[in-house]
């Protein structure tokens, strides 16, 4: 819907302006010209081009697509395009065209159509040099003007205008590179990138590596910028001002900058900006006033959105915003999964029996936990909605459910809200802290100089497993029990009953065990959840760089199955909350669903534009969340395999995810060092929490879903209040750290901490790679200790 207003103000023919941006842009313009020349023969082309050079009139539309689009700069522009076209076959890095003779010589050698030789010859030595040396300046000037205008605009509009700078910068840079002006491009980059690097450092760095036209053609990011519209959200009045500046050069320019606009240079610069605005930007004009939008809102509505948001097949309209997509996907069933009726009655029976035996008067309250009250506002799924599970239940299921209920009763309640509105120095605050904050037990892994790529705890906290870069997995018993596998020299027909099974167990044994089988670093581990917190798990899954996922039996301590299917390293693996199924995330841009009894994938979830870095199951196993290097997270319907939600807002790779146990929220952490909390039902971001100073590796919710604990490469564990309002502290004497700080002025650099950061617990040189809440709300964290000698 947007974009057209600008187009109409500038181009005499909006229709042709719209058509002049074919989907495979980039090389499109050049090829169009080439085709055109070839189809018409040399003389005609030459004549037409000459004509346009001399007259500079836009009336020869249809002859050259570029000239119709930009009447104001037609002559120089056209020549420049052609010059690039001419240089293309020889691929020079420098402005070799400065010497026309040189070009002609080369062109002749390449056997190019003589029309171009003629054309360049006709421009003459002086002309070509002039044009080419002059040309890059319009971009530099244009960007300078735009930046000055944005910085000079009113405070209320500046946050709105700032996001425009980046796409225009990118396109100018790519233009310069593509036209072969490497030096000019580098200069442009040096001058203007520092002001943008705060929020776009990774993209900027990537751009700076593109130095040749061929790179622009082949690079994925550059092509996305070329072929997709960059969405920018703006208020109506702000948009009006922008249009005014682009067309007239008026409307809130900085003082003293006005001189530039009247001159020819200013006009050309603006025209260059306008060209990018018309071709590559899409304005999302909102009726709301510019002050009503939160400062982070631009993150969600700005960027190359069109490819990030999945398009619904069959519908003709193109969905352009994440919100529209999310609302078009309808309601989700986010409630707790139902318990099969027989299993429930059996669990009730066992609980009653145990209450009788224990003479525990509190035990009969347990039964109420069996039927948890429905959470308002979410639909609970029925059994038929769940992925198929075996119809009969086993003792292990009953034990799990019984233990779950016991855990619910014995849980340490954590109430982050207890800290609200308390003076941090008052004696009450200390007590409130103990109610609000968890106890954290830190497991430190020593003598792992290469780091530990993955580490995880079993649901009953009896085992810890760590995957290493050296391709092996190490298993530890945290209870100090011996881990014993099976002997390999037994006759399978000799095994008849439990006692004979005991005989073939290995003798001796230690409390740790090495599992060998992978041929690449082990990036993720997951214990099977079937026995819950009642008993040690029976299986372990591991994902590795060797593109396999392996299933390990903890009875025999051996590898049972290798699941092959991914073509690339598997970054993450997780069991479904009810066992049997598991999901993997891989560098091949897909996530896959597997069942343990099949060696091929059941579902492939494709749609991310880059690596899928992490995968998590929704607690009711109906949905699957994936986080990706394309800076988004998606929610998939496990059974249908379709994307049902997309979460846009991170400004970096989404590195880890966590579902709240009540099933309503998704927390995601990204390389932008922020943690976002999303409302899954609506797909909206609830808040953004910042405070970490290095990559965040792991997130975990407390059992009540009121607290989030995160651990990362900055050697800290941080506790966040999920329900708190958050936001950056308005005054610096606020409760920055959960403690009122007497030395508030000493923490200038910590001002990025949002107010919902309740506490920070530093460790000694231990990056926290996994954070885990036991069902009773004890927090376990693990990380390798880095010896100080390491860099």
């Amino acid at each position, binding site marked *: 819907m947007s974009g057209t207003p600008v187009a109409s103000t500038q181009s005499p023919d909006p229709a042709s302006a719209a058509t002049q941006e074919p989907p495979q842009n980039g090389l499109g313009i050049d090829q169009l010209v080439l085709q055109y020349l070839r189809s018409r023969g040399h003389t005609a082309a030459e004549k037409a081009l000459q004509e346009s050079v001399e007259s500079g009139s836009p009336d020869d539309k249809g002859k050259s697509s570029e000239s119709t689009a930009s009447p104001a700069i037609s002559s120089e522009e056209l020549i420049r395009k052609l010059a690039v076209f001419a240089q293309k076959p020889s691929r020079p890095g420098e402005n070799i065209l400065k010497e026309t003779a040189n070009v002609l010589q080369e062109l002749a050698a390449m056997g190019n159509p003589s029309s171009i030789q003629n054309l360049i010859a006709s421009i003459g030595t002086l002309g070509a040099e002039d044009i080419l040396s002059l040309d890059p300046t319009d971009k530099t000037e244009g960007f300078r003007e735009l930046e000055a205008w944005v910085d000079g605009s009113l405070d209320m509009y500046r946050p709105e205008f700032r996001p425009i700078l980046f796409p225009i910068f990118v396109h100018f840079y790519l233009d310069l590179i593509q036209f072969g002006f490497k030096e000019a491009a580098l200069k442009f980059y040096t001058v203007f990138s520092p002001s943008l*690097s705060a929020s776009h450092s990774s993209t900027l760095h990537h751009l700076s590596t593109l130095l*040749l036209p061929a*790179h622009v053609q082949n690079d994925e990011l550059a092509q996305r910028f070329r072929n997709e519209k960059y969405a920018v959200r703006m208020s109506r009045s702000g948009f009006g001002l922008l249009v005014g500046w682009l067309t007239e050069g008026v409307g809130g320019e900085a003082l003293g900058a006005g001189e530039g606009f009247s001159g020819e240079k200013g006009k050309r610069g603006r025209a260059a900006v306008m060209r990018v605005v018309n071709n590559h930007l899409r304005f999302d004009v909102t009726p709301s006033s510019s002050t009503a939008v939160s400062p982070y809102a631009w993150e969600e509505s700005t960027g190359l959105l069109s490819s990030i948001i999945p398009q619904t097949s069959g519908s003709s309209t193109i969905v352009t915003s994440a919100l529209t997509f999310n609302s078009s996907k309808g309601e989700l069933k986010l409630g707790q999964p139902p318990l099969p009726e027989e299993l429930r009655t059996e669990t009730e029976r066992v609980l009653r029996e145990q209450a009788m035996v224990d003479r525990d008067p509190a035990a009969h309250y347990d039964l109420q936990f069996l039927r948890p009250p429905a959470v308002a506002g979410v639909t609970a799924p029925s059994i038929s909605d769940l992925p198929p599970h075996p119809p009969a239940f086993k003792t292990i299921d009953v034990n799990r459910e019984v233990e779950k209920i016991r855990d619910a009763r014995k849980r340490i309640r954590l109430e982050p809200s207890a800290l609200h509105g308390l003076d941090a*120095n008052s004696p009450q605050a200390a007590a409130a802290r103990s109610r609000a904050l968890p106890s954290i037990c*830190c497991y430190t892994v020593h003598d792992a100089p290469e780091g530990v790529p993955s580490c995880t705890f079993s649901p009953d906290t009896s085992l810890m497993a760590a995957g290493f870069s050296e391709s092996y997995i190490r298993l530890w018993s945290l209870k100090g029990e011996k881990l014993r596998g099976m002997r390999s020299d037994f006759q399978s027909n000799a095994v008849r009953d439990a006692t004979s099974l005991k005989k073939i167990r290995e003798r001796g044994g230690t409390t740790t065990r090495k599992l060998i089988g992978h041929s690449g670093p082990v990036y993720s581990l997951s214990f099977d959840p079937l026995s819950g917190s009642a008993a040690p798990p029976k299986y372990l899954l591991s994902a590795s760089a060797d593109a396999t996922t392996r299933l390990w039996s903890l009875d025999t301590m051996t590898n049972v199955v290798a699941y092959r299917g991914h073509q690339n390293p598997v970054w993450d693996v997780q069991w479904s909350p009810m066992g049997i199924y598991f999901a993997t995330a891989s560098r091949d841009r897909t996530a896959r669903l597997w069942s343990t009894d099949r060696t091929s994938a059941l579902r492939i979830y494709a749609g991310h534009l880059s690596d899928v870095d992490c995968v998590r199951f929704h607690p009711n196993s109906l949905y699957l969340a994936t986080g990706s290097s394309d800076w988004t997270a998606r929610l998939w319907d496990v059974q249908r395999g379709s994307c049902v939600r997309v979460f846009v807002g991170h400004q970096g790779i989404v590195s880890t995810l966590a579902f709240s146990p009540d099933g309503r929220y998704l927390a995601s952490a990204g390389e932008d060092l922020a943690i976002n909390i999303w409302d899954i039902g609506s797909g909206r971001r609830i808040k953004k929490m910042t405070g970490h100073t290095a990559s965040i590796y792991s997130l975990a919710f407390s059992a009540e879903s009121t607290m989030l604990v995160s651990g990362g490469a900055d050697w800290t564990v941080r506790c966040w209040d999920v329900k708190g309002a958050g936001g950056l502290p308005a005054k610096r004497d606020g409760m920055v750290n959960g403690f009122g700080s007497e030395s508030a002025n000493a923490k200038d650099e910590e001002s990025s901490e949002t107010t919902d950061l309740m506490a920070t617990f530093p460790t000694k040189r231990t990056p926290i790679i996994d954070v885990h809440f036991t069902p009773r709300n004890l927090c376990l964290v693990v990380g390798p200790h880095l010896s100080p000698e390491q860099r």
Partner: protein
Amino acid sequence: MSKPKARGTSTQLTGIYRADSIRDVAESLGITNLTDSVASALASDVEYRIHQVVEEAARFMRHARRTTLTTSDIDQALRVLNIEPLYGHSAHNPPTFRRALPFPQLPQAGAVYFVEDEEIDFDRMLREEKITLPKPVSWTAHWLAVEGVQPLIPENPPAIPKETDMEPPVAGAKSTDLPRTSSLLPTPGVTSQTSKKQQQQLVKQVLSRELQLYYTRLTSSLLPPIPSEQAKRTAALASLRHDAGLQALLPYLIRWVGEGVVGALKEGAQSDQDGRVLEVLLDATGALLDNNTLFIEPYLHQVLPPILSTLLHSTLPPSHSTHLRTMSSQILSHMLTQHSTTYPSLSPRIMKTLLLALISPGKSKGTREGAIRGLIAVGKEAIRKGLVEGGGAKVVGSECGYEQPGSLVNSVMDAFRVLQQPSDMPVSLDPDNDADEPVVTQLHEVLGDFFAERLVGDGVWARGVLGISMET
């Protein structure tokens, strides 16, 4: 990945990989007629490819949960990009690059780096070097936080001064099935003695010189208590009562009080001097408790023993005994009102100590009196429980016999007065009256004969003490 990028934006712009290097490589391959344009184009391309590999390697670095790029990451990246990896580099011994001496004849060549290739003499190696196996991977566990407070143990980083209010909490009481090993050494089980010592050292480093000076001045002005320096003491106590920022000193002050009390009581505590010392120490404790900028909760278990010792000590200096016991009971009462809500086990603990002192046989009169004063401080319910229901009055009564009323008896009567005000117009209980008869019996049963005699004269009072409502 993000960090090096942020840095990299401004530094390299004209290309890291130089065209000269391309030309050098070309010459080594026998291509001499390489034009400038080709060389620079190739250099740009090489740089782009290197960046491609590095960006890919950064993903592997991130997934390996590291912040340093290693050669193994590059290997993995090359593998997935379908390029043969470079063999011979391992992350265990990263190659060290040496800078070559500059060539005087070719100054424009710039710095040349090369990988040092060490020559290993096998004979010497076999003869001398003992190959030691690297230590296997192991783990230790410790408390990073206990109910939201980070314990100051060697495993945790020393607190930075602004966080000194996170002093060691009462962590030992928490029993869990989780293994607790208390050292960063891979061998678990270093004795708690050493770890305690380390802890003290850690805290000591944090104390600023000013605070140390303040501590010395403060303690020297309080003790020894010279009567003429009353003003100085008052000033010191006021400072303790009102100054913020004493949090870091709190453990030291409390230890100082504790040691002082122990010292004074150990020597029999008969002289007036000891009495004065105890008085000052109690004053200091009270002042610390009064200071509401201090977070004293984690130390309450250390504050309690000196107070209770003073309160329950059998022989206090006669001149000060009543005053000291009253004062310590007041402090106790103050502490309970302030902290019993946030420290739920506080009042049960105190009650237990007091009851033991009151009831168990063989305690001196002083102890008994202190216990009763303590019970008065705790509250009505405590008095009822200790004196009436627990039979404290009976015990005291039987021990006193029919001697002249001393301070012990006075204290019991005080306690009764707290339970129920004696009526203005006492109506004595009549053992022959039907209504009064069970009360009198009960009075004798519960309080013993000694105190029953004293209460029998006031019916309303006696009923109140026994907890019988007025209507009966």
